[in-house]
């Protein structure tokens, strides 16, 4: 039966099954031994280091805009001194992790999807497999672990840069010292703000790598499928990030509040 004649719900179940099988294959290969350390380090460089500028600039702009947008409302209520607190809690708890993950979904998921998709189309993955090597371990495990490891670090860096952007924006209207601003920021956040936010970035990182690898590794033959793999990797990774975020908020509420 061709793909066109399979009902959508059946395709959805099929794809879910394939994703579960890919997920188990990933974990089997993580613990199989013979970990590709050099490739993992190379992927961390490609994924982490090469995303620093994009995440940094976006986070800075995000901090500036959030501060400028929030200030008039807080001033109206006579609560302008609460501005650092509001900016800091918003960025650390929610905006920093989600925006960084979405940027990474756009940049990294699509890149991984397109790279593995083109390797599939040009039979490089088949060649690796048929030679007796393990493409899952070399291509997939290293990339997923690299995104899982690097996205939390990028988020932390992004949060600090966004707070710095907030500080500059506060100083556009008022004169606030660096020490006062950051003291207010640090005093406003607690362990309950930091820990769940950090843990969810690990899951975001996993989702970005997993979706990119799954879509690329399982793309069909033909150059068209490379574009499709990249595109669906971004869409699916973004949806997963929002879904995981809702889940993380619910779990945090249940456990800590």
């Amino acid at each position: 039966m061709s793909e066109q004649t399979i009902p959508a719900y059946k395709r959805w179940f099929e794809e879910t099954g394939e994703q579960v099988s890919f997920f188990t294959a990933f974990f089997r290969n993580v613990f199989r031994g013979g970990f590709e350390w050099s490739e993992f380090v190379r992927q961390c460089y490609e994924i982490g280091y090469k995303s620093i500028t994009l995440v940094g600039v976006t986070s800075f702009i995000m901090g500036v805009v959030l501060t400028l947008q929030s200030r008039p409302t807080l001033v109206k209520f006579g609560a302008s001194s609460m501005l650092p607190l509001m900016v800091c809690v918003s960025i650390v708890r929610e905006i920093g992790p989600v925006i960084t993950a979405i940027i990474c979904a756009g940049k990294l998921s699509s890149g991984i999807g397109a790279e593995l998709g083109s390797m599939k189309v040009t039979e490089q993955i088949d060649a690796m497999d048929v030679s007796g090597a393990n493409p899952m371990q070399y291509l997939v495990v290293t990339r997923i672990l690299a995104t899982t490891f690097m996205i939390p670090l990028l988020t932390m860096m992004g949060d600090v840069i966004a707070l710095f952007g907030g500080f500059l924006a506060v100083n556009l209207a008022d004169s606030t010292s660096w020490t006062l601003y950051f003291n207010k920021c640090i005093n406003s956040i607690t362990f309950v703000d930091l820990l769940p936010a950090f843990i969810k970035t690990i899951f975001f990182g996993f989702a970005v790598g997993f979706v990119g690898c799954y879509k690329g590794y399982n793309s069909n033959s033909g150059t068209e499928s490379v574009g499709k793999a990249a595109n669906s990797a971004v869409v699916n990774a973004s949806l997963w990030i929002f879904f995981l975020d809702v889940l993380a908020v619910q779990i945090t509420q249940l456990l800590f509040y």
Partner: protein
Amino acid sequence: MSTAEKNPKKDAGKSQPNAETVVEMHNVRKSFGDKEVLKDISLSLKRGENLVILGRSGQGKSVTIKCIVGMLTQDEGTVTVLGEEVAELDDKELKELRIKVGFLFQSGALYDSMTVRENLEFPLTRVLKMNDQEEIDRRVEEVLDSVGLADAIDKMPSELSGGMRKRVGLARTLIVHPEIMLYDEPTTGLDPITSREISDLILQMQKKYKTSSIIITHDMECAEIIADRLIVLNNGLFVAEGTYQELEKSDKEFVRSFFK
């Protein structure tokens, strides 16, 4: 000029009639959805033999060799390679078998993020788990020298021509010293001169590394140079078998049409 005159070394690679069978397919059937690609395929490859499979596009030639190496599993029948039934093997056994069976893809399938040297080192370090860098370098240089590309060792695949990519692909497959080689249209997309060079190279490598080979091709000059025996595949069935000279004079019009 006759084939023998063009290829004086050809007889050296010919198999003996009583040689050991290294690949055996017995009543193999394979379907994709409603389409039955292989209907009832049986073949055997003797040690040291070069077997060419001819056939129009979409007739199941690639499917046949993918079944041999376990990339596809047949629906019915048996595929035995070096005495082991492929469908019965677990992951580890299949991996061990694949080290003994080289597969050259139509495009060469070079890893395009790696240099030629890294492409050749990959199977040595990842498959054979070699870590003696001197031995790795020696084998890389030896095999590259064999395919006449010693100068291209630090080039990226994107810097190589189609013929060079196939040579490097062949080198990467041969570097682990397989016993059996499977070639998927090795001369497709090449000009006639390069095509002849690749065919001669395949023959030389078969002699040097003492491999048994199955070659899928449409290129009759390649078939003439390489083949000890040819099989013609049509509509999922083998319709003729024999030497190049025998099939050239076949009484079946379809078979003769390949030789025009």
